[in-house]
Structures are given as structure tokens and as C-alpha cells.
């Protein structure tokens, strides 16, 4: 975390799931359906499998998983045997939807390639096609950088320079930190060939937040800071979004994050399928969700549907500057024979997923 404003709330994600459960129950009242949410916190040292087993013993059929990719993979097999469908609300790893895809894992979180494509389309639309790519030294940063390289190639941008920012364990801008950062960032970005934007790939919030206003040449920063691709932003008020934001702030006394939205969407998908099937049978609910009729409204101006080749949720991606939604991708002109939303991320023909 670089900005104090980015401090994660203890109930980040969970609050979104709670709100959606309330929404489901309001709807369920008219259909004689009730929804219950159980919290199973998993600490750094805890085995998520134990938590899953305990939930299975309580008869849970759907589990939202807020874990990194390895955690999701670890749960996927055992969940399937206990009849639990997992909803991956956090892990962005493309491999979970590709070679490691599973029939009973639904992905609400967008992939790195979806996020990178969403940003890339906007940059290309803006004709900012010469990118300086700056990535962190963590493995996730390398994956995100891959996604940006792929996006550049797909949409006709060029990466004119690449640099790696080594995580040497610095802290926030306390005391002399500001001065150091002010010296460090211009030098770090010095001497690059002409570029239109600096694309930062920094998933662990090590350096990207320090880049804006400090680059050697005056260029906008995008990616992990500056203009950021997200599934939700607290300023998004289009398509009735203001109502959701108001409801959320009133209940939880903070702004709604992307993780909250991903959890909200997962729970609403379950609720929507339950009300359409008028059933509480998990099999019926999942059959509907995986069927052609399914779609969920999530304040994005169109119904969100599932990719039936890897159970990834299709969704528009917002480009946020932290105060406003600057644009929403897919951008006009990026066409697709099925749905423009499939211009974001790995599409069916390229997919390596074989659902089992």
C-alpha cells in the first residue's frame, strides 16, 4: 500500500456479499426463499481445506473464495467432491481459466488479460500507442506484464521500453521517504525512448503509486496507478449505480470497492438463478446459471453472462482515475462476432481450457 487511502477494510469483499444477501432476501421474501451467508475467515497459516470441510458439514452449496490462485486450486477438487461450487471473487490469474480451469469454479474476478485489454483498448482509442512498461519484481507483476505485452500486440500498441522496479522493502512516504521517492522515480524513468504513457504492472502496490507526477518526462501513468482498470469504482453512478453506492455506504460506512462488487455479483448470481428457477436446489441453480438464459444485472449497463468454455463472468471494465470513471471498455470499434465483451481477455478460440 502506498496511499493511506488504499488501506483495506477488514470486511472488504464480505460487505459486498452481505449486501447482496440482503438484496436476495428482499427478493426471496416474495418467492418464499431465504439466503444465508456464513463467514469462514482463513488466516495466513490456516488451511483453507479445513474451512471448506467445515462449511461442507454445514450443508453449504456455494462458497465465495477470496484467496490467491493457489488457494482456489487447492479447494477446487475437494469442493467438487463435496458438491460445492466455488465462486472465485479475487484471483485474477489467467491460468485458473485456462490450463487449470475447473467445471465447478465460477470466476467473478476479471483476469489480468481482461484488465490489460480493457486498458489497452482505451489507450489505442486515445492513440497513446507507445508504452513504457514498468513492472515490479514479484511473480504476479511478471504475469501482469505478460498480459500487457499480449494486449499491446492484439490491439496495435508498441512497448518501447521495459524496466523492472525491484521491491527492496521500502515503506510509505514517511519522514524522508517523500524526498527519496522524489529523487528516485524521475531517475528510474529517465532515458526511455519516446513514449505516450507509462504502463505500471505492480500488483503488490510497491511503487506504481509513486510514479504519477514523478516520471522523468511528463507522461500519464496507467495500469496499477493513475488510470486503473477495475470492475467497480466508488464513483460509478451510471445505470442505477448511485443506488447501490448509497445502500452500501449507509450500511457499511465506507465506499464500495471492486472486491465488494465482485462478491456482490457472485451472491446476486446465485440469487438470480434461485429466483428464476424458483428453486433452492443447488443443482437446479447451477444448471440455470450455466445455461443460455442466465444473465445478471450489476450496474454496468448490460446483463453480465458467463463464458461457457471456462465459466468466467463477462463484464465491462471501468477505467478509474481514483475519483471518476474516465471510460468503460470495451471501447467503440473493437468488434466481436458474439459479444464485444469477449474482446476482453482470452477468447474461446485461443482458450486452453477443457472443463472437467
Amino acid at each position, binding site marked *: 500500500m502506498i496511499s493511506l487511502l488504499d488501506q483495506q477494510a477488514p470486511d472488504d469483499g464480505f460487505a459486498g456479499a452481505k449486501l447482496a444477501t440482503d438484496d436476495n432476501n*428482499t*427478493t426471496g421474501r*416474495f418467492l418464499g426463499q431465504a439466503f444465508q451467508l456464513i463467514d469462514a475467515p482463513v488466516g495466513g497459516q490456516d488451511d483453507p481445506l479445513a474451512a471448506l470441510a467445515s462449511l461442507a458439514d454445514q450443508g453449504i452449496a456455494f462458497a465465495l473464495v477470496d484467496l490467491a490462485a493457489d488457494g482456489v486450486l487447492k479447494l477446487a477438487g475437494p469442493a467438487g467432491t463435496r458438491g460445492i461450487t466455488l465462486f472465485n471473487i479475487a484471483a485474477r490469474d489467467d491460468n485458473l481459466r485456462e490450463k487449470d480451469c475447473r467445471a465447478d469454479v465460477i470466476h467473478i474476478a476479471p483476469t489480468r488479460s481482461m484488465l490489460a485489454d480493457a486498458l489497452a483498448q482505451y489507450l489505442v482509442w486515445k492513440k497513446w500507442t507507445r508504452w513504457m512498461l514498468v513492472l515490479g519484481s514479484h511473480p504476479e507483476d511478471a504475469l501482469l506484464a505478460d498480459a500487457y505485452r499480449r494486449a499491446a500486440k492484439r490491439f496495435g500498441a508498441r512497448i518501447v521500453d521495459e524496466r523492472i522496479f525491484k521491491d527492496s522493502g521500502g515503506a510509505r512516504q514517511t519522514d524522508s521517504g517523500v524526498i527519496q521517492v522524489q529523487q528516485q522515480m524521475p531517475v528510474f524513468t529517465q532515458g526511455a525512448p519516446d513514449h505516450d504513457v507509462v504502463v505500471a504492472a505492480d500488483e503488490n502496490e510497491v511503487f506504481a503509486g509513486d510514479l504519477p507526477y514523478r516520471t522523468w518526462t511528463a507522461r500519464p501513468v496507467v495500469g496499477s496507478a493513475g488510470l486503473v482498470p477495475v470492475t467497480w469504482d466508488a464513483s460509478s453512478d451510471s445505470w442505477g449505480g448511485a*443506488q447501490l453506492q448509497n445502500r452500501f455506504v449507509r450500511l457499511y460506512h465506507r465506499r464500495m470497492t471492486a472486491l465488494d462488487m465482485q462478491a456482490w455479483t457472485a451472491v446476486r448470481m446465485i440469487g438470480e438463478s434461485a429466483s*428464476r428457477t424458483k428453486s433452492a436446489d443447488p443443482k437446479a441453480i447451477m444448471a440455470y446459471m450455466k445455461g443460455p438464459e442466465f444473465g445478471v444485472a450489476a450496474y454496468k449497463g448490460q*446483463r453480465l453472462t458467463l463464458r461457457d468454455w471456462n465459466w468466467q463472468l463477462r463484464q465491462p471494465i471501468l477505467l478509474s482515475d481514483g475519483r471518476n470513471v474516465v471510460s468503460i471498455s470495451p471501447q467503440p470499434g473493437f468488434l466481436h462476432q458474439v459479444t464485444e465483451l469477449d474482446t476482453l481477455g482470452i477468447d474461446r478460440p485461443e482458450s486452453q481450457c477443457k472443463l472437467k
Partner: protein
Amino acid sequence: MRGRLGCAAGLATIRPTMALLAFSFVDVLFPARSQALTAYVSNERDNTISVVDLDAMKAVKTIDVGERPRGITLTRDGHFILLCASDDDTIQVIDTKTLKVVGNLPSGPDPETFALNAAGNLLYVSNENDSMVTVIDIDARKVMAEIPTGVEPEGMTVSPDGQTIVNTSETTNMAHFIDYKTRKVTANVLVDARPRIAMYRHDGTELWVSAELGGTVSVIDPVAHAVKRKIGFEVQGLRSDVIQPVGIRFTADDALAFVALGPANRVAVIDTKTYQVKDYLLVGQRVWQMDFTPDGKLLLTTNGLSNDISVIDVAALKVVKSIQVGRLPWGVVVAP
């Protein structure tokens, strides 16, 4: 009723001098307002109402109102505009003679739209943030009842016989039928995603509900409480996901229905016998709400993104004019 509303302790509004000057200037231009056919348009982003002279076909005055004005209607006698000032959590009462805010109704939080009962003394309000429909006695300015409905209540309408109130809920995706007398929900009909507007035929035989994200209009049998037909839309060259039905209006003889298609920038004209779309009329951008002139000859549409209203000649099925109003026009009502 008029006296009681008029003498209310209105909100004191302090305006900068420039605005006052503009006001008196427009007044001079527009002395004979009562003669002309007048439309009132709520501008969600400007916190204003545009007063449109339909003889001159232009906006002649702007009224400053509360925050985020959306639903707009007139009292049955035409003396007052009722306006949902959503972010002020109130319904404002505006005198159509003086065009001044003269009072407020206790609407409950975040009122979005409303419907008057047949007698015109009760107002049914959807409270979008609260999953509630509030019933207000207009004369007494009192909340008579709060009726729990689905998540994000939106469309409100009253059946022609006055016995049933219908509310749609955008996130619950239902039309809720409420009994006028008992004020209890008697039936819930699931429709497609994000229902916006519910509208009875004048003869009461059908209730039509638009689903903005579902892209359909459900035709509901109001006795059986069942969807008997779904109307879909297709516009050459447009992606299906930009066809988002919102406003619905029937001609007085119920022969035609007009459905506003949001970002498709078109109004569909539907033959109510065959349920077939017979025409798509190109209007301004993101068309939502509509209202007929009292003679039924013109239909006005609010176009949120182009900041104008389109005027449709109903007999010719032609768009004859677009009139600039404020920013993000939401609702429109034409004075009798």
C-alpha cells in the same frame, strides 16, 4: 387543496443576482404562459425543471428545484407540479402559476417516481434506496402507509379502476401488485432484468412492464398475474445490449404503444393487437420517459444524453422537433 399547498413554509432559496436577472428577463419574454400548451421537464443533473412552450417549441424558463429531480407529474387540477427531488429525500410542490416551490411532501428517502390515484388525493411513491413504496395523502401531507416491496423500487402505476397499484423493483426483477384498500402486496410477477416502467392499457386488460437490461416488454395479464407475452426489439445495425426499454405509453384508444428504448435512441411503435413493432422512430440520445399532449397529437420524449426532448407527431409517426432543455432530462409531463 391549492390554498393549503400554497401557504406552506416553502424552502427559502437564495439565488445569485445573475440568476435573478435571468429570471426577470425570461418573464418578460414569456408573459402569456397560461395560454400555451406547456411541458415540464425534470433535469436530473441540473437540479432544474425546464418549462417548454409547445406552441413556440422551445424552453422558455428554468426553475431551480431540489437535488436530483426525477419523477415529475401534475396534480389533477393542474395547479401544482409534483417533483421527486431524490437526493433531498422529498417531493417538491411547485405552483404552475408562479413557478415557485411552495411546499414539500414527506416522501421517505430517495423518491424516484410516483403515481396518483384516480381521485388525485393519494400519491404512491417508490423509495429507491429503501425497498419501499410510500403512500402519501397530498392534502394532509401525511405518510399514510409504507409498503415493503423489492430491491430498488422504480416504476409506479395505478390500474384504471383504481383498485390495484403496481410497483416494479429493478434488482428484484418483479412487478408487485398491491391492493388499493389493504395496501398489501397481493401478487409478484417475475419479469426480465431491471424492470423500469409499468403501464396499464387504458382499458385495464393488460399491464406492460419494460425490462431495461432484459431488453423486453412483458405483457402481463393483470387478473391471472402471469406474463402472457414478451415483446423483443431488433434494430438493424444496433447491438442488442443497447436496446434498453424504459418508458411506455398507450394512445388513448390503446391501438398503439410507444416504448422508449434508452441508448438505442429510438422509440418503438407497437401494434397492440399483434404485438409487432411497426416502426422505430429515431429520437435523441438515451430516451427514457414520455408523455402525450392532452389531445394525444404529440408525444414528448426525454433524451438524457443529448439534453433535449423530441416531439413526435403521433398521427404521422414522425419526429417533428427536438427542443433543448437542461442536462440529463429525466421526466416530462404536459399540462392539461
